[in-house]
Protein backbone atom coordinates (compact mmCIF):
# COMPACT_ATOMS: atom_id res chain seq x y z
CA UNK A 1 0.00 0.00 0.00
CA UNK A 2 1.44 3.30 -0.99
CA UNK A 3 1.42 5.87 1.77
CA UNK A 4 0.92 9.51 1.06
CA UNK A 5 3.02 12.18 2.56
CA UNK A 6 0.30 12.90 5.10
CA UNK A 7 0.21 9.34 6.18
CA UNK A 8 3.87 9.29 6.70
CA UNK A 9 3.62 12.37 8.86
CA UNK A 10 0.93 10.78 10.85
CA UNK A 11 3.08 7.76 11.35
CA UNK A 12 5.81 9.79 12.82
CA UNK A 13 3.43 11.33 15.39
CA UNK A 14 3.12 8.12 17.28
CA UNK A 15 3.16 9.67 20.74
CA UNK A 16 -0.27 11.22 20.38
CA UNK A 17 -2.12 9.12 17.87
CA UNK A 18 -1.98 5.40 18.05
CA UNK A 19 -3.80 4.99 14.77
CA UNK A 20 -2.33 5.67 11.35
CA UNK A 21 -2.85 9.11 9.94
CA UNK A 22 -6.07 8.60 7.99
CA UNK A 23 -8.16 11.04 6.17
CA UNK A 24 -11.13 12.40 8.07
CA UNK A 25 -13.43 10.43 5.80
CA UNK A 26 -11.76 7.17 6.59
CA UNK A 27 -11.70 8.15 10.23
CA UNK A 28 -15.42 8.65 10.23
CA UNK A 29 -15.88 5.34 8.46
CA UNK A 30 -13.80 3.62 11.05
CA UNK A 31 -15.83 5.21 13.82
CA UNK A 32 -19.05 4.03 12.22
CA UNK A 33 -17.62 0.55 11.89
CA UNK A 34 -16.75 0.53 15.57
CA UNK A 35 -20.23 1.66 16.56
CA UNK A 36 -21.96 -0.96 14.47
CA UNK A 37 -19.59 -3.59 15.81
CA UNK A 38 -20.40 -2.63 19.41
CA UNK A 39 -24.11 -2.74 18.56
CA UNK A 40 -23.67 -6.20 17.15
CA UNK A 41 -21.76 -7.32 20.20
CA UNK A 42 -24.67 -6.19 22.37
CA UNK A 43 -27.04 -8.28 20.27
CA UNK A 44 -24.80 -11.31 20.61
CA UNK A 45 -24.61 -10.78 24.35
CA UNK A 46 -28.39 -10.58 24.56
CA UNK A 47 -28.80 -13.76 22.62
CA UNK A 48 -26.42 -15.74 24.76
CA UNK A 49 -27.75 -14.02 27.86
CA UNK A 50 -31.29 -15.10 27.13
CA UNK A 51 -30.24 -18.62 26.49
CA UNK A 52 -28.19 -18.63 29.68
CA UNK A 53 -31.00 -17.33 31.86
CA UNK A 54 -33.37 -19.82 30.31
CA UNK A 55 -30.94 -22.58 31.25
CA UNK A 56 -30.71 -21.09 34.74
CA UNK A 57 -34.47 -21.14 35.18
CA UNK A 58 -34.67 -24.74 34.04
CA UNK A 59 -31.99 -25.78 36.54
CA UNK A 60 -33.69 -23.93 39.41
CA UNK A 61 -37.08 -25.43 38.63
CA UNK A 62 -35.61 -28.91 38.39
CA UNK A 63 -33.95 -28.54 41.80
CA UNK A 64 -37.06 -27.12 43.47
CA UNK A 65 -39.25 -29.82 41.98
CA UNK A 66 -36.94 -32.51 43.28
CA UNK A 67 -36.88 -30.95 46.71
CA UNK A 68 -40.59 -30.55 46.98
CA UNK A 69 -41.59 -33.88 45.53
CA UNK A 70 -43.76 -35.50 48.15
CA UNK A 71 -42.99 -39.16 47.85
CA UNK A 72 -45.14 -40.89 50.42
CA UNK A 73 -43.59 -44.02 51.78
CA UNK A 74 -45.75 -46.24 53.94
CA UNK A 75 -43.89 -48.97 55.74
CA UNK A 76 -45.27 -50.97 58.61
CA UNK A 77 -43.04 -52.18 61.41
CA UNK A 78 -39.80 -51.73 59.53
CA UNK A 79 -37.00 -49.39 60.22
CA UNK A 80 -36.44 -46.69 57.69
CA UNK A 81 -32.81 -45.90 57.27
CA UNK A 82 -31.47 -43.00 55.34
CA UNK A 83 -27.90 -43.32 54.28
CA UNK A 84 -25.89 -40.44 55.64
CA UNK A 85 -28.27 -39.24 58.40
CA UNK A 86 -26.78 -39.69 61.84
CA UNK A 87 -30.07 -39.56 63.72
CA UNK A 88 -33.82 -39.24 63.39
CA UNK A 89 -36.38 -37.59 65.66
CA UNK A 90 -39.31 -39.64 66.88
CA UNK A 91 -42.13 -39.72 69.38
CA UNK A 92 -43.86 -42.71 70.90
CA UNK A 93 -47.14 -43.50 69.24
CA UNK A 94 -50.28 -44.87 70.82
CA UNK A 95 -50.58 -48.64 70.85
CA UNK A 96 -53.34 -50.54 69.09
CA UNK A 97 -53.28 -48.31 66.03
CA UNK A 98 -55.23 -45.52 67.76
CA UNK A 99 -54.50 -42.23 66.14
CA UNK A 100 -51.59 -40.38 67.70
CA UNK A 101 -52.54 -37.10 66.10
CA UNK A 102 -53.13 -34.06 68.30
CA UNK A 103 -56.62 -32.66 68.26
CA UNK A 104 -55.49 -29.57 66.31
CA UNK A 105 -52.99 -31.22 63.95
CA UNK A 106 -55.10 -30.20 60.97
CA UNK A 107 -53.72 -26.71 61.55
CA UNK A 108 -50.16 -27.88 60.89
CA UNK A 109 -48.57 -28.07 57.45
CA UNK A 110 -46.43 -31.15 57.99
CA UNK A 111 -47.33 -34.82 57.66
CA UNK A 112 -47.35 -37.46 60.37
CA UNK A 113 -44.13 -39.33 60.96
CA UNK A 114 -43.26 -42.69 59.47
CA UNK A 115 -44.16 -45.74 61.55
CA UNK A 116 -41.14 -47.34 63.10
CA UNK A 117 -40.55 -49.96 65.77
CA UNK A 118 -37.49 -50.39 67.96
CA UNK A 119 -37.31 -53.12 70.64
CA UNK A 120 -41.10 -53.54 70.72
CA UNK A 121 -41.80 -49.86 71.12
CA UNK A 122 -43.75 -48.07 68.40
CA UNK A 123 -42.73 -44.65 67.12
CA UNK A 124 -43.65 -42.11 64.51
CA UNK A 125 -40.34 -40.81 63.19
CA UNK A 126 -38.65 -38.52 60.68
CA UNK A 127 -36.69 -39.97 57.77
CA UNK A 128 -34.82 -38.88 54.66
CA UNK A 129 -37.90 -37.79 52.76
CA UNK A 130 -39.96 -36.61 55.76
CA UNK A 131 -37.66 -34.27 57.61
CA UNK A 132 -40.49 -32.32 59.29
CA UNK A 133 -43.32 -34.20 60.95
CA UNK A 134 -46.02 -33.77 63.58
CA UNK A 135 -45.23 -34.74 67.15
CA UNK A 136 -47.17 -37.88 68.08
CA UNK A 137 -49.51 -37.30 71.02
CA UNK A 138 -50.23 -39.87 73.71
CA UNK A 139 -51.83 -39.82 77.14
CA UNK A 140 -48.41 -39.29 78.75
CA UNK A 141 -47.00 -36.88 76.24
CA UNK A 142 -49.22 -33.99 75.20
CA UNK A 143 -49.95 -30.27 75.54
CA UNK A 144 -53.59 -30.76 76.53
CA UNK A 145 -54.25 -31.49 72.86
CA UNK A 146 -54.97 -35.18 73.32
CA UNK A 147 -58.62 -35.20 74.28
CA UNK A 148 -58.76 -32.16 76.50
CA UNK A 149 -59.23 -28.82 74.95
CA UNK A 150 -56.43 -26.38 75.47
CA UNK A 151 -54.21 -24.85 78.12
CA UNK A 152 -54.74 -22.02 80.62
CA UNK A 153 -52.85 -20.46 83.55
CA UNK A 154 -52.11 -23.24 86.02
CA UNK A 155 -51.86 -25.95 83.38
CA UNK A 156 -48.77 -28.12 83.05
CA UNK A 157 -47.69 -31.35 81.42
CA UNK A 158 -44.90 -33.07 79.58
CA UNK A 159 -43.87 -33.90 76.03
CA UNK A 160 -41.38 -36.70 75.32
CA UNK A 161 -39.33 -37.11 72.16
CA UNK A 162 -36.71 -39.63 71.13
CA UNK A 163 -33.43 -39.30 69.29
CA UNK A 164 -32.88 -42.45 67.26
CA UNK A 165 -29.20 -42.89 66.63
CA UNK A 166 -28.05 -44.37 63.35
CA UNK A 167 -24.39 -44.48 64.17
CA UNK A 168 -22.06 -45.93 66.76
CA UNK A 169 -19.87 -43.78 68.93
CA UNK A 170 -20.14 -40.13 69.89
CA UNK A 171 -23.32 -38.38 68.81
CA UNK A 172 -24.18 -34.76 69.41
CA UNK A 173 -27.41 -33.05 68.39
CA UNK A 174 -28.20 -29.35 68.62
CA UNK A 175 -31.80 -28.75 69.69
CA UNK A 176 -33.95 -25.68 69.28
CA UNK A 177 -37.41 -25.31 70.82
CA UNK A 178 -39.75 -22.52 69.82
CA UNK A 179 -43.26 -21.55 70.88
CA UNK A 180 -45.24 -19.53 68.35
CA UNK A 181 -48.58 -17.88 69.01
CA UNK A 182 -51.39 -17.65 66.45
CA UNK A 183 -54.74 -15.93 66.34
CA UNK A 184 -57.69 -17.39 64.54
CA UNK A 185 -61.22 -18.57 65.17
CA UNK A 186 -61.71 -21.53 67.46
CA UNK A 187 -63.31 -23.25 64.50
CA UNK A 188 -60.24 -22.74 62.31
CA UNK A 189 -59.92 -25.64 59.91
CA UNK A 190 -56.52 -25.24 58.24
CA UNK A 191 -53.27 -23.39 58.69
CA UNK A 192 -54.43 -20.77 56.22
CA UNK A 193 -57.02 -19.66 58.79
CA UNK A 194 -54.25 -18.80 61.24
CA UNK A 195 -52.26 -15.60 61.58
CA UNK A 196 -49.22 -15.00 63.73
CA UNK A 197 -50.04 -13.21 66.97
CA UNK A 198 -48.79 -9.64 67.45
CA UNK A 199 -45.29 -9.09 68.79
CA UNK A 200 -46.36 -8.18 72.33
CA UNK A 201 -48.48 -11.29 72.64
CA UNK A 202 -45.69 -13.44 71.24
CA UNK A 203 -43.23 -12.08 73.81
CA UNK A 204 -45.66 -12.64 76.67
CA UNK A 205 -46.27 -16.15 75.41
CA UNK A 206 -42.54 -16.89 75.65
CA UNK A 207 -42.48 -15.65 79.24
CA UNK A 208 -45.66 -17.30 80.46
CA UNK A 209 -45.69 -20.74 78.81
CA UNK A 210 -42.40 -22.19 79.96
CA UNK A 211 -40.32 -25.24 79.07
CA UNK A 212 -38.09 -27.16 81.44
CA UNK A 213 -36.11 -30.39 81.12
CA UNK A 214 -36.70 -31.73 84.62
CA UNK A 215 -39.39 -31.80 87.29
CA UNK A 216 -39.28 -32.87 90.92
CA UNK A 217 -42.79 -33.96 91.84
CA UNK A 218 -42.09 -34.17 95.57
CA UNK A 219 -40.79 -30.63 95.78
CA UNK A 220 -43.09 -29.43 92.99
CA UNK A 221 -40.10 -27.67 91.43
CA UNK A 222 -38.57 -27.53 87.97
CA UNK A 223 -35.05 -27.92 86.56
CA UNK A 224 -33.23 -26.72 83.49
CA UNK A 225 -35.13 -23.80 81.99
CA UNK A 226 -35.19 -23.44 78.22
CA UNK A 227 -35.60 -19.76 77.43
CA UNK A 228 -33.79 -16.73 76.09
CA UNK A 229 -33.75 -15.38 79.65
CA UNK A 230 -32.36 -18.57 81.19
CA UNK A 231 -28.80 -19.09 82.35
CA UNK A 232 -26.46 -21.93 81.37
CA UNK A 233 -27.00 -25.39 82.90
CA UNK A 234 -26.09 -29.00 82.37
CA UNK A 235 -28.01 -32.18 83.16
CA UNK A 236 -27.25 -35.86 82.89
CA UNK A 237 -30.20 -37.87 81.66
CA UNK A 238 -30.86 -41.29 83.14
CA UNK A 239 -30.80 -43.11 79.86
CA UNK A 240 -27.32 -44.23 78.80
CA UNK A 241 -25.63 -41.24 80.43
CA UNK A 242 -26.72 -38.79 77.79
CA UNK A 243 -26.04 -35.16 78.67
CA UNK A 244 -28.37 -32.28 77.94
CA UNK A 245 -26.91 -28.82 78.35
CA UNK A 246 -27.56 -25.19 77.60
CA UNK A 247 -24.62 -22.85 77.09
CA UNK A 248 -24.28 -19.12 77.81
CA UNK A 249 -25.69 -18.22 74.42
CA UNK A 250 -28.79 -20.35 74.67
CA UNK A 251 -27.61 -23.23 72.51
CA UNK A 252 -29.15 -26.49 73.65
CA UNK A 253 -27.11 -29.63 73.00
CA UNK A 254 -27.85 -33.29 73.57
CA UNK A 255 -24.88 -35.59 73.43
CA UNK A 256 -23.94 -39.15 74.20
CA UNK A 257 -20.46 -40.66 74.21
CA UNK A 258 -21.20 -44.20 73.10
CA UNK A 259 -24.32 -44.16 71.00
CA UNK A 260 -25.47 -47.53 69.79
CA UNK A 261 -26.93 -48.02 66.36
CA UNK A 262 -30.72 -48.00 66.03
CA UNK A 263 -31.35 -47.08 69.65
CA UNK A 264 -34.01 -44.60 70.74
CA UNK A 265 -32.86 -42.17 73.44
CA UNK A 266 -35.74 -40.40 75.23
CA UNK A 267 -35.77 -36.75 76.25
CA UNK A 268 -38.70 -35.37 78.27
CA UNK A 269 -39.72 -31.73 78.30
CA UNK A 270 -41.96 -30.29 81.00
CA UNK A 271 -44.20 -27.41 79.99
CA UNK A 272 -45.97 -25.18 82.52
CA UNK A 273 -48.05 -22.00 82.50
CA UNK A 274 -47.57 -20.67 86.06
CA UNK A 275 -50.87 -19.49 87.45
CA UNK A 276 -49.34 -16.75 89.59
CA UNK A 277 -46.23 -14.57 89.62
CA UNK A 278 -45.23 -16.14 92.91
CA UNK A 279 -43.98 -19.28 91.18
CA UNK A 280 -41.18 -17.28 89.53
CA UNK A 281 -40.18 -15.47 92.70
CA UNK A 282 -40.20 -17.75 95.72
CA UNK A 283 -37.88 -20.52 96.89
CA UNK A 284 -40.43 -22.56 98.84
CA UNK A 285 -44.14 -23.16 98.91
CA UNK A 286 -45.03 -21.34 102.10
CA UNK A 287 -46.55 -18.37 100.29
CA UNK A 288 -47.86 -19.93 97.11
CA UNK A 289 -49.92 -22.85 98.29
CA UNK A 290 -49.69 -25.95 96.14
CA UNK A 291 -48.36 -24.17 93.09
CA UNK A 292 -45.02 -25.08 91.51
CA UNK A 293 -41.68 -23.37 92.22
CA UNK A 294 -39.66 -22.55 89.13
CA UNK A 295 -36.29 -21.59 90.64
CA UNK A 296 -35.87 -23.06 94.10
CA UNK A 297 -32.17 -22.12 94.42
CA UNK A 298 -30.19 -18.93 94.16
CA UNK A 299 -27.38 -18.59 91.64
CA UNK A 300 -24.28 -20.46 92.68
CA UNK A 301 -21.13 -20.16 90.58
CA UNK A 302 -19.57 -23.47 89.69
CA UNK A 303 -22.53 -25.81 89.87
CA UNK A 304 -24.78 -27.33 87.25
CA UNK A 305 -27.21 -24.43 87.72
CA UNK A 306 -30.24 -26.62 87.10
CA UNK A 307 -32.53 -25.24 89.78
CA UNK A 308 -31.06 -21.76 90.12
CA UNK A 309 -32.68 -18.41 89.44
CA UNK A 310 -30.92 -16.96 86.36
CA UNK A 311 -28.82 -13.96 87.34
CA UNK A 312 -30.45 -11.54 84.93
CA UNK A 313 -34.07 -12.69 85.11
CA UNK A 314 -35.42 -10.13 87.59
CA UNK A 315 -33.73 -7.37 85.61
CA UNK A 316 -35.33 -8.63 82.42
CA UNK A 317 -38.69 -8.67 84.21
CA UNK A 318 -38.39 -4.94 84.93
CA UNK A 319 -37.38 -3.99 81.41
CA UNK A 320 -39.63 -1.53 79.58
CA UNK A 321 -38.73 -3.08 76.23
CA UNK A 322 -39.47 -6.64 75.11
CA UNK A 323 -40.85 -7.57 78.50
CA UNK A 324 -41.93 -11.20 78.41
CA UNK A 325 -43.60 -11.33 81.80
CA UNK A 326 -45.69 -8.25 82.50
CA UNK A 327 -48.30 -6.22 80.68
CA UNK A 328 -49.03 -2.61 81.57
CA UNK A 329 -51.03 0.30 80.24
CA UNK A 330 -49.04 3.10 81.89
CA UNK A 331 -45.32 2.44 81.61
CA UNK A 332 -44.44 5.02 84.27
CA UNK A 333 -46.76 3.40 86.74
CA UNK A 334 -45.25 0.01 85.94
CA UNK A 335 -41.67 1.24 86.22
CA UNK A 336 -42.44 2.76 89.59
CA UNK A 337 -44.16 -0.31 90.96
CA UNK A 338 -42.11 -3.22 89.67
CA UNK A 339 -38.41 -2.99 90.52
CA UNK A 340 -35.61 -5.51 90.74
CA UNK A 341 -35.30 -4.69 94.42
CA UNK A 342 -38.90 -5.57 95.14
CA UNK A 343 -38.71 -8.81 93.17
CA UNK A 344 -35.62 -9.79 95.18
CA UNK A 345 -37.39 -8.88 98.38
CA UNK A 346 -40.26 -11.23 97.58
CA UNK A 347 -37.69 -14.00 97.27
CA UNK A 348 -36.15 -13.44 100.68
CA UNK A 349 -38.92 -11.79 102.69
CA UNK A 350 -42.34 -12.37 101.15
CA UNK A 351 -44.84 -9.58 101.77
CA UNK A 352 -48.37 -10.33 100.53
CA UNK A 353 -49.32 -6.70 100.17
CA UNK A 354 -46.28 -5.77 98.07
CA UNK A 355 -46.66 -9.00 96.14
CA UNK A 356 -50.23 -8.02 95.25
CA UNK A 357 -49.03 -4.81 93.57
CA UNK A 358 -46.53 -6.76 91.46
CA UNK A 359 -48.80 -9.66 90.58
CA UNK A 360 -51.35 -7.36 88.97
CA UNK A 361 -49.07 -6.94 85.95
CA UNK A 362 -48.58 -10.69 85.59
CA UNK A 363 -52.32 -11.30 85.69
CA UNK A 364 -52.95 -8.56 83.16
CA UNK A 365 -50.43 -10.26 80.89
CA UNK A 366 -52.34 -13.53 81.24
CA UNK A 367 -55.54 -11.75 80.28
CA UNK A 368 -53.82 -10.16 77.29
CA UNK A 369 -52.55 -13.58 76.24
CA UNK A 370 -55.98 -15.10 76.54
CA UNK A 371 -57.46 -12.43 74.31
CA UNK A 372 -54.71 -12.21 71.70
CA UNK A 373 -53.44 -15.73 71.22
CA UNK A 374 -55.72 -18.59 70.31
CA UNK A 375 -53.28 -21.35 69.27
CA UNK A 376 -49.75 -22.18 70.34
CA UNK A 377 -47.34 -24.21 68.23
CA UNK A 378 -44.40 -25.97 69.85
CA UNK A 379 -41.65 -26.85 67.39
CA UNK A 380 -38.52 -28.89 68.01
CA UNK A 381 -35.67 -28.44 65.52
CA UNK A 382 -32.68 -30.76 65.62
CA UNK A 383 -29.46 -30.83 63.65
Amino acid at each position, binding site marked *: *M*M*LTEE*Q*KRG*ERMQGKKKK*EGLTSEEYRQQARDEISKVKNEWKVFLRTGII*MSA*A*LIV*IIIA*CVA*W*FVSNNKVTISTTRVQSAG*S*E*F*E*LAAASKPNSETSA*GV*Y*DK*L*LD*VPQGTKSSIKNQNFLA*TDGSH*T*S*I*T*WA*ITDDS*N*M*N*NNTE*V*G*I*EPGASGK*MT*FYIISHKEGALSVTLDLTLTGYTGE*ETAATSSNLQKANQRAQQLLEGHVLLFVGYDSDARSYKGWISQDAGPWSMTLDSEKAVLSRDENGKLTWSVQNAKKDTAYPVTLYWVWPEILGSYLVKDQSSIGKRPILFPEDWNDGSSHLTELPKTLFKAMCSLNDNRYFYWKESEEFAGTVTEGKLNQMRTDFNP*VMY*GTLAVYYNQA*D*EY*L*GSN*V*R*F*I*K*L*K*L*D*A*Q
Partner: protein
Amino acid sequence: MSQSAEEQQEHRKQKKDWKQERRKRRAIWAVVSAALALLAVPVLAWLYMQRSMETITEIKKPEILSIKAGDMQDIEQLELGTIDVSGDQKTKDVVFCVYSAEKGKKYDLQLAHTTNIGFTYSIYKASSPIEGGDVTYLGKQYKKGELLPGGYLNLAADGKHATNAYHNNTYGEYNNVQQAAEPLYWKSKEQETLSNKKDEREEFYVNYYILHISWDETVQNNKETDMIYLMAG
Protein backbone atom coordinates in the same frame (compact mmCIF):
# COMPACT_ATOMS: atom_id res chain seq x y z
CA MET B 1 7.24 2.13 6.00
CA SER B 2 4.38 0.18 4.60
CA GLN B 3 5.72 -2.83 6.30
CA SER B 4 5.60 -1.29 9.75
CA ALA B 5 2.05 -0.07 9.02
CA GLU B 6 1.09 -3.57 8.04
CA GLU B 7 2.78 -4.89 11.11
CA GLN B 8 0.84 -2.48 13.23
CA GLN B 9 -2.41 -3.52 11.65
CA GLU B 10 -1.54 -7.16 12.20
CA HIS B 11 -0.64 -6.38 15.75
CA ARG B 12 -3.96 -4.61 16.34
CA LYS B 13 -5.91 -7.47 14.79
CA GLN B 14 -4.14 -9.95 16.98
CA LYS B 15 -4.87 -7.81 20.01
CA LYS B 16 -8.57 -7.69 19.12
CA ASP B 17 -8.69 -11.41 18.56
CA TRP B 18 -6.97 -11.99 21.83
CA LYS B 19 -9.39 -9.66 23.63
CA GLN B 20 -12.33 -11.51 22.10
CA GLU B 21 -10.78 -14.76 23.06
CA ARG B 22 -10.46 -13.54 26.64
CA ARG B 23 -14.05 -12.35 26.69
CA LYS B 24 -15.27 -15.67 25.36
CA ARG B 25 -13.31 -17.54 27.95
CA ARG B 26 -14.66 -15.35 30.74
CA ALA B 27 -18.21 -15.83 29.54
CA ILE B 28 -17.84 -19.59 29.49
CA TRP B 29 -16.32 -19.56 32.95
CA ALA B 30 -19.21 -17.48 34.29
CA VAL B 31 -21.82 -19.88 32.93
CA VAL B 32 -20.00 -22.97 34.15
CA SER B 33 -19.43 -21.61 37.67
CA ALA B 34 -23.08 -20.51 37.90
CA ALA B 35 -24.24 -23.96 36.90
CA LEU B 36 -21.87 -25.58 39.40
CA ALA B 37 -23.09 -23.33 42.18
CA LEU B 38 -26.69 -24.13 41.38
CA LEU B 39 -25.97 -27.83 41.50
CA ALA B 40 -23.88 -27.65 44.67
CA VAL B 41 -26.43 -25.75 46.78
CA PRO B 42 -29.28 -28.26 46.59
CA VAL B 43 -26.92 -31.17 47.04
CA LEU B 44 -25.36 -29.62 50.13
CA ALA B 45 -28.80 -28.79 51.50
CA TRP B 46 -29.82 -32.41 51.16
CA LEU B 47 -26.74 -33.61 53.00
CA TYR B 48 -27.07 -31.00 55.80
CA MET B 49 -29.01 -32.73 58.59
CA GLN B 50 -32.10 -31.01 59.83
CA ARG B 51 -35.10 -32.67 61.43
CA SER B 52 -38.10 -31.15 63.14
CA MET B 53 -41.26 -32.15 65.01
CA GLU B 54 -44.13 -29.88 65.88
CA THR B 55 -47.43 -29.89 67.72
CA ILE B 56 -50.16 -27.31 68.26
CA THR B 57 -52.58 -26.62 71.09
CA GLU B 58 -55.21 -24.05 71.99
CA ILE B 59 -55.48 -21.46 74.77
CA LYS B 60 -58.78 -21.84 76.55
CA LYS B 61 -60.86 -18.71 76.42
CA PRO B 62 -61.08 -17.21 79.92
CA GLU B 63 -64.70 -17.12 81.14
CA ILE B 64 -65.56 -14.49 83.70
CA LEU B 65 -66.84 -15.23 87.17
CA SER B 66 -69.67 -12.99 88.37
CA ILE B 67 -72.11 -12.40 91.21
CA LYS B 68 -75.84 -11.91 90.88
CA ALA B 69 -78.70 -11.56 93.29
CA GLY B 70 -81.05 -14.39 94.23
CA ASP B 71 -81.47 -16.80 91.37
CA MET B 72 -79.51 -15.07 88.60
CA GLN B 73 -81.42 -11.88 89.08
CA ASP B 74 -79.95 -8.44 88.48
CA ILE B 75 -77.33 -7.46 91.01
CA GLU B 76 -79.20 -4.21 91.67
CA GLN B 77 -81.83 -6.28 93.36
CA LEU B 78 -79.38 -7.35 96.05
CA GLU B 79 -80.62 -4.76 98.48
CA LEU B 80 -79.90 -4.42 102.12
CA GLY B 81 -81.19 -0.88 102.34
CA THR B 82 -82.80 0.01 105.61
CA ILE B 83 -82.89 -2.64 108.27
CA ASP B 84 -85.25 -2.09 111.19
CA VAL B 85 -83.59 -3.64 114.22
CA SER B 86 -86.44 -2.95 116.66
CA GLY B 87 -88.62 -5.82 115.57
CA ASP B 88 -88.72 -9.29 117.11
CA GLN B 89 -86.79 -10.93 114.34
CA LYS B 90 -83.11 -10.33 114.93
CA THR B 91 -81.86 -11.61 111.58
CA LYS B 92 -82.00 -10.80 107.88
CA ASP B 93 -81.12 -13.12 105.02
CA VAL B 94 -80.23 -12.21 101.46
CA VAL B 95 -79.40 -14.72 98.78
CA PHE B 96 -76.74 -14.20 96.15
CA CYS B 97 -75.19 -16.48 93.54
CA VAL B 98 -71.77 -16.89 91.97
CA TYR B 99 -71.77 -18.06 88.35
CA SER B 100 -69.71 -18.51 85.19
CA ALA B 101 -70.00 -19.97 81.70
CA GLU B 102 -67.18 -22.37 82.56
CA LYS B 103 -67.82 -25.30 84.85
CA GLY B 104 -65.77 -26.34 87.85
CA LYS B 105 -64.13 -22.93 88.30
CA LYS B 106 -62.40 -22.47 91.64
CA TYR B 107 -62.72 -19.25 93.60
CA ASP B 108 -62.50 -17.67 97.06
CA LEU B 109 -65.38 -15.76 98.62
CA GLN B 110 -64.53 -12.58 100.46
CA LEU B 111 -66.65 -10.21 102.48
CA ALA B 112 -65.57 -6.75 103.58
CA HIS B 113 -67.63 -4.41 105.74
CA THR B 114 -67.28 -1.35 107.93
CA THR B 115 -68.22 -1.62 111.59
CA ASN B 116 -70.47 1.34 112.44
CA ILE B 117 -73.34 -1.00 113.12
CA GLY B 118 -72.72 -4.00 115.31
CA PHE B 119 -74.13 -6.54 112.85
CA THR B 120 -72.77 -10.06 112.70
CA TYR B 121 -72.33 -11.36 109.18
CA SER B 122 -72.03 -14.95 108.12
CA ILE B 123 -72.28 -16.74 104.82
CA TYR B 124 -74.05 -20.05 104.40
CA LYS B 125 -74.12 -22.30 101.40
CA ALA B 126 -77.57 -22.55 99.87
CA SER B 127 -79.34 -24.99 97.63
CA SER B 128 -80.69 -24.06 94.23
CA PRO B 129 -84.19 -22.61 94.41
CA ILE B 130 -86.66 -25.24 95.65
CA GLU B 131 -90.13 -25.37 97.06
CA GLY B 132 -90.48 -25.22 100.81
CA GLY B 133 -87.07 -23.82 101.59
CA ASP B 134 -86.31 -21.98 104.80
CA VAL B 135 -85.21 -18.72 103.21
CA THR B 136 -87.32 -16.70 100.82
CA TYR B 137 -85.74 -14.01 98.71
CA LEU B 138 -86.90 -12.21 95.59
CA GLY B 139 -89.73 -14.64 95.06
CA LYS B 140 -87.78 -17.87 95.36
CA GLN B 141 -87.09 -20.22 98.23
CA TYR B 142 -83.80 -21.76 99.22
CA LYS B 143 -82.69 -24.31 101.73
CA LYS B 144 -79.99 -23.07 104.09
CA GLY B 145 -76.93 -25.30 104.07
CA GLU B 146 -73.79 -25.33 106.13
CA LEU B 147 -71.84 -22.32 107.28
CA LEU B 148 -69.04 -21.42 104.89
CA PRO B 149 -65.73 -21.94 106.72
CA GLY B 150 -63.63 -18.81 106.86
CA GLY B 151 -62.39 -16.09 109.15
CA TYR B 152 -61.67 -12.42 109.55
CA LEU B 153 -58.18 -11.37 108.52
CA ASN B 154 -57.94 -8.28 110.70
CA LEU B 155 -60.29 -8.65 113.65
CA ALA B 156 -59.21 -6.68 116.71
CA ALA B 157 -59.17 -8.10 120.22
CA ASP B 158 -62.57 -6.60 121.07
CA GLY B 159 -64.13 -8.80 118.42
CA LYS B 160 -65.96 -5.89 116.85
CA HIS B 161 -63.59 -3.57 115.02
CA ALA B 162 -60.68 -3.93 112.63
CA THR B 163 -56.99 -3.57 113.36
CA ASN B 164 -54.76 -1.39 111.19
CA ALA B 165 -53.27 -4.35 109.35
CA TYR B 166 -54.83 -3.40 106.03
CA HIS B 167 -55.04 0.33 106.54
CA ASN B 168 -52.48 1.06 103.83
CA ASN B 169 -54.27 -1.07 101.29
CA THR B 170 -57.61 0.53 101.98
CA TYR B 171 -56.72 4.14 102.56
CA GLY B 172 -53.11 4.53 101.42
CA GLU B 173 -51.44 7.42 103.20
CA TYR B 174 -54.63 9.02 104.50
CA ASN B 175 -54.69 8.87 108.28
CA ASN B 176 -57.88 10.57 109.51
CA VAL B 177 -59.89 7.38 109.64
CA GLN B 178 -62.34 6.55 112.40
CA GLN B 179 -61.93 3.06 113.75
CA ALA B 180 -65.36 1.97 112.58
CA ALA B 181 -64.50 3.03 109.05
CA GLU B 182 -61.62 0.58 108.97
CA PRO B 183 -63.14 -2.36 107.08
CA LEU B 184 -63.14 -5.88 108.42
CA TYR B 185 -62.03 -8.41 105.82
CA TRP B 186 -63.43 -11.91 105.87
CA LYS B 187 -62.16 -14.63 103.55
CA SER B 188 -63.32 -18.19 102.96
CA LYS B 189 -60.84 -20.75 104.19
CA GLU B 190 -61.08 -23.23 101.36
CA GLN B 191 -61.60 -22.60 97.70
CA GLU B 192 -65.13 -23.01 96.48
CA THR B 193 -65.78 -24.87 93.25
CA LEU B 194 -68.51 -24.07 90.79
CA SER B 195 -70.99 -26.82 90.18
CA ASN B 196 -70.39 -29.17 87.29
CA LYS B 197 -74.00 -29.13 86.18
CA LYS B 198 -75.70 -26.29 84.45
CA ASP B 199 -78.55 -24.51 86.22
CA GLU B 200 -82.14 -25.01 85.15
CA ARG B 201 -81.82 -22.40 82.44
CA GLU B 202 -79.06 -24.54 80.88
CA GLU B 203 -76.77 -21.59 80.46
CA PHE B 204 -74.49 -21.11 83.45
CA TYR B 205 -72.90 -23.01 86.30
CA VAL B 206 -74.22 -21.46 89.52
CA ASN B 207 -73.51 -21.71 93.25
CA TYR B 208 -75.98 -20.16 95.72
CA TYR B 209 -75.15 -18.52 99.06
CA ILE B 210 -77.07 -16.86 101.85
CA LEU B 211 -75.66 -13.78 103.56
CA HIS B 212 -77.02 -13.99 107.08
CA ILE B 213 -77.05 -10.76 109.09
CA SER B 214 -77.87 -10.94 112.76
CA TRP B 215 -77.83 -8.58 115.75
CA ASP B 216 -78.61 -8.42 119.43
CA GLU B 217 -80.16 -5.86 121.76
CA THR B 218 -77.07 -3.65 121.77
CA VAL B 219 -77.84 -2.57 118.22
CA GLN B 220 -80.29 0.32 118.06
CA ASN B 221 -82.05 2.19 115.26
CA ASN B 222 -79.65 5.13 115.22
CA LYS B 223 -79.22 5.89 111.54
CA GLU B 224 -75.74 4.44 111.28
CA THR B 225 -74.51 3.29 107.88
CA ASP B 226 -72.18 0.54 106.87
CA MET B 227 -70.69 -0.47 103.55
CA ILE B 228 -70.54 -4.12 102.62
CA TYR B 229 -68.58 -5.67 99.76
CA LEU B 230 -69.02 -9.18 98.44
CA MET B 231 -66.24 -10.56 96.26
CA ALA B 232 -65.61 -13.81 94.42
CA GLY B 233 -62.39 -14.61 92.61
